[in-house]
């Protein structure tokens, strides 16, 4: 009766995923009728997005400043491409809701924040993808990451990469935000442990800290 209630209705044909109509709208129509998603050996996949072969696509993403070759399906999200398809993969961006509500998958696309779960990997081709791993490492922390640690702006840590990414984007755009601007910059990010007050403190402290990297 209400099998379709939760928004993932069974497809009329099992091999026709819901995103195909979406792809058509994006100009993938030529490939759509030709068994785009039929399983083919990886080696048969063509080399560029423009050629759109049956099966997987070989694309090159620019991730944290480096070209990264990756095989994806047309429907593969940027988030899955980063987390699962890249070798070695990048798991800093988290899959939490998969529908653009929580911000745990936040990355930067050409310097602007984006929910990687709502971006198709193929749409990220030719754009600068920055993940939390590109902002700093445990041995070379960014000023904001150091401030998160100093102020204890984290608990379980699962939402933390998303907050760090959103607020890094803010500080690159506005190096001296006020608290309201900090709050607005991360209102697309959810935390359940309750680290918000210390995240705000961390962002404001990092804003005062010297040498915030400009993107």
């Amino acid at each position: 009766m209400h099998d379709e209630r939760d928004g993932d209705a069974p497809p009329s044909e099992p091999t026709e995923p819901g995103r195909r109509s979406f792809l058509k709208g994006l100009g993938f129509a030529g490939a759509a009728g030709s068994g785009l998603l039929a399983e083919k050996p990886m080696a048969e996949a063509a080399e560029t997005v423009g050629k759109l072969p049956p099966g997987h696509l070989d694309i090159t993403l620019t991730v944290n400043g480096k070209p990264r070759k990756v095989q994806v399906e047309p429907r593969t999200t940027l988030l899955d491409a980063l987390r699962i398809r890249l070798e070695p993969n990048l798991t800093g961006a988290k899959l939490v809701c998969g529908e653009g509500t929580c911000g745990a998958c936040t990355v930067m696309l050409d310097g602007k924040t984006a929910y990687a779960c709502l971006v198709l990997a193929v749409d990220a081709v030719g754009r600068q993808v920055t993940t939390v791993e590109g902002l700093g490492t445990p041995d070379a922390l960014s000023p904001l990451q150091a401030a998160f640690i100093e102020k204890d702006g984290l608990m379980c840590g699962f939402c933390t990469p998303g907050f760090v990414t959103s607020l890094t984007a803010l500080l690159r755009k506005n190096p001296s935000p006020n608290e309201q601007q900090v709050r607005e910059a991360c209102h697309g990010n959810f935390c359940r442990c309750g680290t918000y007050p210390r995240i705000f403190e961390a962002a404001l402290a990092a804003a005062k800290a010297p040498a915030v990297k400009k993107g």
Partner: protein
Amino acid sequence: MSTPTPTPAPGAAPKKMKKIKVTRAVNGIDTEVEIEVEDTNEGPVWGPNDKHRLVNSRLVRVDAAPKVTGAAKYTHDIKLPGMLYARVLRSPHAHARVTAIDTSAAAALPGVKAVVVGPPIDVKLPFEVIFEGQAVAAVAAGTPEQAEDARKAIKVTYEALPHVCAAQDAIKPDAPVVVTGDPNVEPKGKKGEPAQADAAFAACDAVVEADYKTPVIHHCCLETHGMVIDYRGGDTATVYATTQGVFSVKTDAVKALGLPEDKVVILTEYMGGGFGSKFGLGTEGLLAVELSKRAKAPVHLMLTRRDEFTMAGNRSGSWQSLKGGVMKDGRFVVLKTYQRRLGGIADGSAAVQPYVYTPEVAYSEDVAVHTHECPSRAMRAPGHVQSGFAMEMMVDELAHKIGMDPLEFRKKNIKGDDAKNWHRTLDKGAAAIGWSRRNATPGAGAGPRKRGIGCAVATWGGGGNNQCKVTVDIAPDGAVTVKCGTQDLGTGTRTFMRAIVAEELGLGMKDVVEKIGDSRLGGANGSGGSTTAGSLAPSVKVAAYRARNAFAEKIAPLLKVTPDKVTFADGMVVGGDQKLTWKRACAALAPAGLSVLGDWKAELQSKTTHPAAFAEVEVDVETGRVKPIKIVSVQDCGLPLSRTTLESQINGGMIQSMGMALWEGNVMDADLGVRLNPSFMDYKMPGSLEIPELVPIIDDDDPREAAIGVAEPCLIPTVGALINAIYNACGVRIRELPATPDKVLMALLSQEKKA
């Protein structure tokens, strides 16, 4: 879980034992059990709370760097060669008979390696599903997309059956029976004499009778439930689990896999939140194990957010009828309670009334009302949150009815040996919020935006038990490792483990490494019932103390002193006029180093906490919108192990409690039997724009020199404080949570009509 075996000192006489009562949490629900421990005055003590060097200081969370850089690997992040991704198919019906499941089309899809029907695995048809979201099948395939295609291709034939998804319908005599063998209204306990309570009301100066309702609340752990089962046939398996109980998962996994206990390893290096919902293997784990067995490949089964909302448990709702009677002088004479727990097909939870306060006469009755809804699980202070809210509302209403300051009324009616502790936390909170600023008359003040202040108290055990086996290793190269199979939920477990050992050995935080989240390490309790600190910290302290003593024994001859003259401070080992650097001294431990086991010492922990919360809100009487302005939470906890992480935890308690008070709640369409808001889109959690000024206060006047867990108590009272603040602001009682604008406006409107 096995009980740690104390390491006997060589040649020691038989130990004198004593029996004590401790808290043990099973699936997050705490119970009291009697255990036998050594009766001795020997061993370490914590010493005065203000005389610690690292413990009780502002420590930096030791696992922060990997978390802020994305380097920390959670269960969800595990990727193994040949690993399959799994998806679960759930029932869309609240109550139905499953007459057929056709998995052939799904199994034939590209990349699909295994399909499972159940649980129970390979369930015999027909069978009944009794809540929307109940798992009926699962698939594993090469990619998440293929698994999703296959999930959708499973054809299930349901024959819809009558359901009941509202408590007020479930209690009717002709309602469909929800749980076979149980009545829809299942008695859970009675206390007191009803006739005595009824008689006591006659003599009271004022009586308040009201129903208080709290909705089903979701845990909303950012990392959904799930497991990666690495089993490829053969006789060993590794389970990556996002869990609060490494060893309870192990018990379940060993059984499900059918492997010997020593062949199954559970790993939980980092985990993305639990709040009481993540203990055993769970439905998702059972399905993942079976898929892994069938595919002979590792299986990654993490629930989707919608799965999580509909099948992974929640905080049970409540519908509580309270009647209280008082005298004009503030004497709380009588309380009569009828509590209904709304835990769906499960029992839900409730704390025994009267909660905290001690009316002279009390009668309470507690029932579980079953509906065709997802079974509840423990959630941060199960039962206390619901019962505490109702009691704090009742107390506030009674105080106002006799024109008494609600803070004074509370202090007058908390009795017994513990009363002084609540008086202390209440006084501190009142000072911090500025209690005297509050409206003398609720709703006073000009203009549409009205401010008000409210308060509430709570209680929780927070003691520990003897389930943790901790080892401290000192290597000849100077490396110090503290090891236990426990888990860190983001509470700071790793941080206090390291601090205790470093402090005992005269080292810095960077000189010690902790290893946790691995079932090959020493056993540990599940992190439920706030029992982690009280269980683990004493065991770590004993292990560190024994390691220090053992080291002193070994190094004393070299320093030409007796072992009792060896001291450890500032990274040096000192005896008489001889001084060795830590590294130099450790070289004397070659070749094997030291490895010392610590067991639990009851005297190093305590229990029972007395938190108080105060809140200030602004109510817009034209829109009904409630804006939290400031929350103060005062928490006693004996010896604070790590102040920074403790304050963060108290902040979290306030924020989660605020969500419950003002915005959160499961919305069920009782006619259709489906949930209407199973996503973050429609389930409103507190976000960055709603966070008020938060003031976490650690009660440093708690004289106990003992570790006590506070994850749960620090959540409970805020919800009552906020709702009582709404009353103080605008003069209306919101007796059903959350206090959304519609409810506030309706209450204001009905008050206007009365006036």
